[in-house]
């Protein structure tokens, strides 16, 4: 049987993956350009303004980094759950809850010395995020309840819970629904942007996740469960436990993102602050098929689009909502497995191909 050599296989696969991402980017930008033409604006001007808005000057670049930080975590959160076979749309809810817990601890646990308080904020946020993700993980693995539905609906529940808390019991009593300012903050740089050292915490967390997935036995188990739970069960790995744990890790990363947003960006819990953070992270992960190494790069690209959007809206007549449209087109194209497979090499996935 002719089998291509392994090294070649890896090279071509990597090249194919990258080529596909690039083609997807180009096609999405072209479709986006059509939407811009639709409202009689110049797409090239718009795109130039977009990238200027993302990189031109300290503020712009800082803003890009600030919006990259949560996306880095939420995209990895989605990806790690996906590795175990879960479609966790609930990262956004976990960001909200992580944020509210960080705000609560940051405001009220002043009896702790400052370094401990940081740790408490992070641990509290991550624990609650994990606990929240446990629910859909449990329901899916024990009762086969579709996790997409559950996590989406639970996002709304999380939003309303935090919204109730900051407009009621935890309200700062100002016009906006928000909490009192927290007593610990993450150091900000590139001021006046809100880029902060949370970025490096996030990078460290993501590196840890990648290491765990690739190098540890636990990572091996996640990969096994995600690709073939029946096999995992048979070889003596408990697929349910692994599935739930991955969901909880995913939730913890979401909670961490919420904590960084509260301690690093806002300084308090602002109602609704996480809207879009979860879904954009999901987009970044989906585009690269939940590859944990590539997801951060995609997250960075989306962060550029996000932070440049405002500049584009100001300097051209193109509404910043075009960016959401482009990213959505992006994801639709990216999910189409066979779109950029040329040469008619559309392999049929017949499992009995070698045994037919």
């Amino acid at each position, binding site marked *: 049987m002719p089998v291509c050599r392994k090294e070649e296989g890896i090279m071509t696969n990597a090249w194919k993956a990258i080529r596909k991402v690039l083609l997807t980017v180009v096609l999405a930008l072209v479709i986006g350009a059509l939407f811009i033409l639709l409202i009689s604006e110049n797409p090239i001007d718009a795109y130039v303004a977009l990238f200027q808005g993302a990189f031109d000057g300290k503020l712009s670049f800082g803003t890009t980094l600030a919006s990259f930080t949560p996306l880095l975590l939420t995209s990895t959160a989605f990806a790690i759950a996906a590795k175990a076979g879960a479609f966790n749309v609930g990262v956004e809810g976990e960001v909200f809850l992580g944020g509210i817990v960080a705000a609560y601890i940051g405001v009220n646990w002043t009896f702790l010395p400052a370094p401990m308080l940081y740790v408490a904020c992070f641990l509290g946020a991550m624990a609650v995020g994990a606990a929240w993700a446990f629910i859909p993980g449990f329901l899916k693995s024990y009762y086969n309840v579709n996790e997409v539905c559950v996590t989406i609906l639970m996002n709304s529940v999380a939003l309303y819970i935090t919204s109730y808390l900051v407009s009621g019991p935890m309200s700062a009593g100002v016009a906006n629904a928000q909490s009192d300012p927290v007593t610990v903050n993450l150091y900000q740089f590139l001021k006046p942007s809100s880029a902060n050292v949370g970025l490096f915490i996030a990078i460290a967390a993501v590196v840890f996740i990648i290491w765990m997935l690739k190098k540890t*036995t636990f990572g091996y188990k996640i990969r096994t469960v995600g690709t073939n739970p029946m096999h995992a069960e048979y070889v*003596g790995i408990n697929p349910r436990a692994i599935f739930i744990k991955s969901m909880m890790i995913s939730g913890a990363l979401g909670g961490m993102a919420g904590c960084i947003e509260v301690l690093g960006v806002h300084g308090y819990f602002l109602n609704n602050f996480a809207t879009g953070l979860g879904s954009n992270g999901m987009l970044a992960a989906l585009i690269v098929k939940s590859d944990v190494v590539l997801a951060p790069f995609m997250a960075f690209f989306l962060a550029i689009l996000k932070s440049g959007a405002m500049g584009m809206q100001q300097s051209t007549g193109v509404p910043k909502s075009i960016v959401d449209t482009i990213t959505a087109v992006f994801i639709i194209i990216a999910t189409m497995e066979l779109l950029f497979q040329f040469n008619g090499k559309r392999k049929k996935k017949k499992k009995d191909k070698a045994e037919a």
Partner: protein
Amino acid sequence: MSDYVVEMTGIVKSFGEVQAVKNGYFTLKKGEIHSLIGENGAGKSTMMKLLYGMYGFDDGVVKVNGEELTSITPKLAIEKGIGMVHQEFMLVNELTVLENIILGFEPKKGMTIDFDTARKNVNHYIDQYGMDIQIGKRINQISVGEAQRVEIIKILTRGANTIILDEPTAVLTPQETRRLFEILENLRRDGKSIVFISHKLNEVMEISDRISVMRQGEYIGTVDKKDTNPAELAKMMIGREVFLNIEKKKAKAGEVVLKVDNLWTSGEKEISKIHGVDLEVRAGEIVGIAGIDGNGQSEFIEAITGLRQVEKGKVYLGGQDITNLSPRKIRDAGLTHIPEDRNTRGLNRTMSIMDNLIAVQVDAKPFSKGMLLDTGAALEHSKELAEKFDIRPRDPQMSTESLSGGNAQKVVVAREVSIGGKLLVASQPTRGVDIGAIESIRSILQDVKEEGLGVLLVSADLEEILSLSDRIVVMYEGKISGRMDADEANEDNLGLLMMGGQDTSHAGVQEGGRDHD
């Protein structure tokens, strides 16, 4: 006008990089039974699936009744009078027998389906061929033999003149096979042309008019039955002479390693629920479980390996109660398991040979160092196993995705056998693998027995059961219908037990089964 109803020449078909058929050739005369034989993976099923339009062929010419067909869909094939009984039945479990039969060719009354006409029409065919089929039942309520008859009726109601049967006897008892052959004889008498795919030479010699042989995707030749003999066919199939009958080594049975006491479980179908099974396996012996697929063998194995809940009864391994323990704990107690389905259970096809070889021991030394996976140790171990068990390709970092059936199965066997322990459960260990792998897997099972492990073998292949087992039990409708020593057993007495010891004329008629609680 050609003499042939079907003519296939120069057929080529590849799946990805694997060439399943190269230069395939096949002809079918009107009113003949033409057997297409070859080993697993010889391309015989693929040839016929191409004729039925399941896949498109890459190159070659297909003529049906003299007319060349450049692209075939199942719909076109049906229109041209071709019908196929697939190895895996194409029946929707949740629909009724009647709904399955009329699917795609539903008689209509206005906007709705005319079930009355449909029933009348189907009953007409059932009576004509004297088959017993209960058309009101759902597919998951009937037996395998009956389902096969449903498939045949389905094809006949669609007006097929050419009938392809893909390994139809694999799921039947010898007695049921004889009934099937009577039906085929009747069909031939009515002028139908039949393609019979098989690798069982005695059956082929019994039923065929002509026989074509394929090997490794290539056409080898066609012979008239009256001019040939099994030895010649075997040589054509394999390309060399093969003696599968390994010399059985006398068992030196030791103490009991597996004791199953009055086991009850749920089941995929009514007839596959386990109803109170007792069984013992001793160290150093092979106990074979014979039976037609779907009579509870899978459920029984799943129950003792921790993959299915035991509802009642006890399972002991080496004296330790392992009832309803997790698969992990059962493995720790000394059980290893070659599962019946290597694609879903046995292997993770997305991972490498190495990853699959260490899957069971990923938490054990030397592969696990603290939390870390020691890929060096894993690689070394895998290379050793690949060498010892002749897994091709040798490179353990290759993906298992494109492994052939035989090599894929060797990965599973290597992993399980290398662990050792007390009991090896081998379920359909040679299903869908080539003849070379069959030989080596069977001799490995013998070796395992020699080393003093108990072996529990499940196989639907009577020849395999007879050639390996020291003791044989027969499973029928979730119960043990008979037990005997291997030297008392033969195809006839086992075949009878496989049907619950009933008279053959009632074979396959099963009432829903009893619910025990």
